[in-house]
């Protein structure tokens, strides 16, 4: 096996990954960047994001206000220094993307248009109709093609972070097409692999969101932070889980129960006069409470409420929410111009992830992470809509720059040890293909999904979480006996699924473990047995680290700069 050598190894080619790649080559034109992605980059899940990306640009807005909204939305678990960095760089990053050709929607005077979004006090969400993530990703992908020093390894699956002398020096990755394992070596590694929504059965996430980078970092000894905080988006289509963007509420849509009431106003769910534009955790909880009170609609895929857009009119819907209209018509047979759309809470985003500081650096030298797979943390216990696309840009750029600085200042490592590790990975992959065993991938995956949904739903309590943790631990044991049918090397997607399932089991274990031990309710983590927020005991980040005899849970302090903790009322 020969090593493939570059300076910076990027894993993942979505919004954060491509931004990091461009930032690295712009920071230092002598560096060569490898972009290792299990997908062609334009297929990355960033492409499905719809609503928008927040950045404070209007006269009636300020960086402090964006920071305050974000912090309050996070239920004060976000690190304030990171939030300050985030809001300061948000407008610049969004403008940079505009310079690169992103077709942001415009005001009549030619300036970029902004709209309201959940939890935001003023209009600050930049948007490209209702396909913002799509336009952002394609702009980044097309712009990245300008740089010859970004070398793409499309459809290469990274299976392990290679560590030598206490430093991350690359990844072992196999070419899905040939089945051949490679050692991709460099002086810094950046993980931009996205979240892990697929550990749940009902999610807006694409098939590929299996927490690969999180698992890789975890197995390399880096901690996973705040994993218990899983965002349920209030408006997913029943059955498929397809996302109905928050922008539909930002443009004035209503949520109604089976009595035709706008329940967020009618009953006290803590969103105040924000109503439908309350933060996502509160709106999702409200919907579940409506179901529990018997005010939900019943359907073959569970209960749901109505998202009403009829009063917006056909012209506005076609202009601002055309994709929403198309999706509703295709997948639930409803034309939102005439009828309400059925929606229910759906797993959407992981606030938690690989523990990094505000430069994207982990505590393993040479290893960086950015985007949904990382936890900086700016989202704390609950993320505000339209902050994550901006997060990809701001921290993707920062991690790219930081990795470039690190790479410039460090020497290329020796090849022997990493090549040895890569050869072990090759052997592991060979053993996995066509492996004999009694368990089936699809069956373990289904049982995992069932466990996470019953243990880590919108409302949680001790017994179901403990049971879920027990199940996940058992499933990990059963996974060792998984059997595969496909022995081939060329484009074997069964072995890819097996590797992804292994990653999902590790991530799910971290999620449930952190959840069962956090004895309070904060943001998206809501417990019926501990229903209030407890700053005295629980104002801290959870951290899960790998150990041979089972994951170790610890805690680390939240960074505070200027804002005092408040009760979270809207």
């Amino acid at each position, binding site marked *: 096996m020969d090593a493939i050598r570059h300076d910076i190894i990027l894993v993942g080619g979505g919004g954060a990954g491509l931004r990091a790649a461009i930032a690295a080559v712009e920071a230092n034109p002598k560096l060569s960047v490898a972009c290792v992605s299990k997908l062609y980059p334009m*297929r990355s*899940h960033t492409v499905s994001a719809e609503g928008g990306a927040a950045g404070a640009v209007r006269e009636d807005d300020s960086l402090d206000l964006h920071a305050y909204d974000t912090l309050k939305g996070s239920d004060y678990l976000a690190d304030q220094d990171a939030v300050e960095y985030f809001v300061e760089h948000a407008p*610049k990053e969004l403008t940079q993307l505009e*310079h690169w050709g992103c077709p942001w929607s*415009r005001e009549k005077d030619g300036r970029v248009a902004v709209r309201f979004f959940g939890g935001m006090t003023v209009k600050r969400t930049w948007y490209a109709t209702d396909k913002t993530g799509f336009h952002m990703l394609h702009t980044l992908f097309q712009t990245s093609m300008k740089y010859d020093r970004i070398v793409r390894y499309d459809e290469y699956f990274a299976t392990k972070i290679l560590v030598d002398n206490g430093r991350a020096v690359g990844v072992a990755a196999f070419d899905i097409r040939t089945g051949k394992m490679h050692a991709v070596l460099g002086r810094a590694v950046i993980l931009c692999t996205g979240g892990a929504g697929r550990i749940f059965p009902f999610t807006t996430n694409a*098939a590929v969101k299996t927490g690969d980078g999180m698992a890789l970092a975890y197995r390399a000894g880096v901690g996973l932070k705040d994993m218990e905080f899983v965002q349920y988006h209030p408006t997913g289509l029943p059955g498929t889980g397809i996302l109905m963007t928050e922008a539909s509420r930002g443009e004035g849509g209503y949520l109604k129960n089976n009595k035709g009431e706008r329940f967020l106003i009618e009953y006290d769910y803590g969103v105040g006069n924000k109503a439908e534009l309350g933060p996502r955790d509160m709106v999702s909880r409200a919907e579940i409470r409506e179901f529990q009170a018997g005010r939900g609609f019943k359907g073959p895929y569970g209960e749901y409420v109505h998202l009403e857009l009829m009063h917006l009119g056909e012209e506005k819907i076609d202009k601002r929410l055309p994709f929403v209209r198309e*999706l509703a018509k295709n997948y639930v047979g409803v034309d939102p111009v005439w009828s309400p759309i059925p929606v229910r809470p759906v797993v959407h985003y992981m606030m938690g992830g690989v523990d990094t500081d505000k430069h994207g650096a982990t505590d393993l030298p040479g290893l960086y992470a950015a985007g949904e797979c990382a936890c900086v943390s700016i989202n704390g216990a609950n993320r505000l809509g339209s902050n994550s696309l901006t997060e990809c840009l701001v921290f993707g750029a920062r991690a790219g720059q930081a990795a470039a600085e690190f790479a410039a200042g460090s020497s290329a490592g020796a090849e022997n040890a990493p090549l040895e590790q890569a050869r072990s990975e090759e052997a592991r992959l060979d053993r996995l293909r066509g492996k004999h065993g009694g368990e089936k991938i699809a069956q373990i995956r289904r049982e995992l999904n069932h466990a996470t949904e019953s243990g880590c739903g919108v409302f949680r309590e001790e017994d179901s979480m403990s049971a879920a943790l027990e199940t996940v631990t058992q499933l990990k044991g059963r996974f060792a006996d998984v059997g595969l049918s496909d022995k081939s090397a060329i484009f074997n*997607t069964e072995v890819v699924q097996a590797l992804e399932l292994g990653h999902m089991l590790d991530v799910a274990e971290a999620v449930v473990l952190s959840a069962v031990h956090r004895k309070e309710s904060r943001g998206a983590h809501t417990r019926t047995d501990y229903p209030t927020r407890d700053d005295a005991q629980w104002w801290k980040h959870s951290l899960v680290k790998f150990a041979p005899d089972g994951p170790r849970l610890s805690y680390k302090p939240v960074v505070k700069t200027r804002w005092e903790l408040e009760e979270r009322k809207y």
Partner: protein
Amino acid sequence: MQLRKVKFEVLRFRPEQDEKPVFESYDVECMEDWVVLDALNAIKDDIDPTLSHRWSCRMGVCGSCGMLVNGRPVLTCAAFVRNYSGTIRVEPLSNFPIVRDLVVELDGFVEKIKSVKPWIIRKLEKDVAEGEYRQSPEQLEEFKQFSMCINCALCYAACPVLANEPEFVGPAAIALGHRYNLDSRDEGNAERFAVLDSHDGVYACSYANECSQVCPKHVDPAMAIQQAKLTDFLQWSHLLPKRSFT
């Protein structure tokens, strides 16, 4: 919810064991609201895990799952089983070499996209601190439609020209180049001219219009190509300058 048993004939190709592609048949219990992709996943999960196919978002925006269903190029995540009667035939996209089962070789396609220089080209870049380039909603409308391409390559599968001239740059690439040419912030259409004007560029198109017929996102690449032809001719004959606007 009703279940219906549907027979799927899927073209398989395992290079390590198959001389050439061969059809295999699967009976799948399908729910009423399933798409063809759901059936393929059911085959992979529970019937034949050796089936390889690409998919990701399952909502028609990532472009991964393009295949031929009963001979027509579609996104399998948007092809509803209820709209087909009888046996459903699933094959990989035409006009592309087959790597494995329903997976085709797309590297050539991505290279063609790159060849039209799909990025903003300007003589002088504005500093980010000075804010955005002003662009009116009307100026945005001019190229917006052509920016909606999800790179699913259905247009390449449908194009009869590509069957005989595989070097043709193709509908998606030309539409993308045209998108940048029309963007008021771009000044680079002279740079794209060479590729668009070449033998394999816009003039290889002979008005089949099939690309626009199959495009799931209503990009209308055929329109982009005809507009690009006219622009190209006017520039080639010097009736229109190549170096464009600020």
